[in-house]
């Protein structure tokens, strides 16, 4: 079956612009996670979805970051008024549910803010 897919694979944007990053989880997986990978900070948790609800948003760095999930499937991470420090690889992972810990990652979206 298909794995986790993310789009775009690369995104270059100017400082101050808004960007949307998309994640398609593995079919049937109800839990979805966003992480950020940067050189200085390693792999950091951003937000967790169970179905369409986000019970844990504790990793979102600022109110410029938001995410939603619709139909219990596709998720979109939105970064408003991008800053250079937002440059990173944004990774999405899914698991069967929030109690099944095996998470499968997508290839990531590399965001570069110029």
């Amino acid at each position: 079956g298909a794995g986790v897919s993310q789009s775009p694979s690369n995104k270059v944007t100017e400082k101050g612009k808004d960007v949307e990053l998309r994640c398609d989880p593995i079919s049937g997986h109800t839990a979805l996670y966003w992480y950020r990978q940067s050189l200085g900070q390693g792999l950091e948790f951003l937000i967790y979805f169970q179905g369409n609800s986000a019970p844990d948003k504790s990793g979102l760095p600022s109110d410029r970051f938001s995410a939603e999930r619709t139909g219990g499937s596709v998720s979109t991470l939105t970064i408003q008024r991008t800053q250079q420090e937002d440059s990173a690889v944004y990774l999405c992972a899914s698991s069967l549910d929030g109690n099944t810990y095996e998470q499968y990652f997508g290839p990531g979206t590399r965001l570069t803010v110029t």
Partner: protein
Amino acid sequence: QQQVKQSPQSLIVQKGGIPIINCAYENTAFDYFPWYQQFPGKGPALLIAIRPDVSEKKEGRFTISFNKSAKQFSLHIMDSQPGDSATYFCAATGGTSYGKLTFGQGTILTVHP
């Protein structure tokens, strides 16, 4: 208390050697400890994982050793191959964390032919 500390940062071995990567955690609520392998330009791939009810788990050439009292776990790669050259991350989750993973800083492994 949420940290996972990983060492070494980088590791070079010859083909056939047994690289060992170590991790230590603080949160005693953690009860699931996976290892991920990441190649450049790719997402992390789940390699092997262990729960605290066992002290060792083996899958193919990869073995996790777990020491609950010391709050440490390690990855051993038997008969390492150049194709194993990648970045390896340990992680941990459990308790009320909804499965969100806390990662170590990563180890860059190079296996020379």
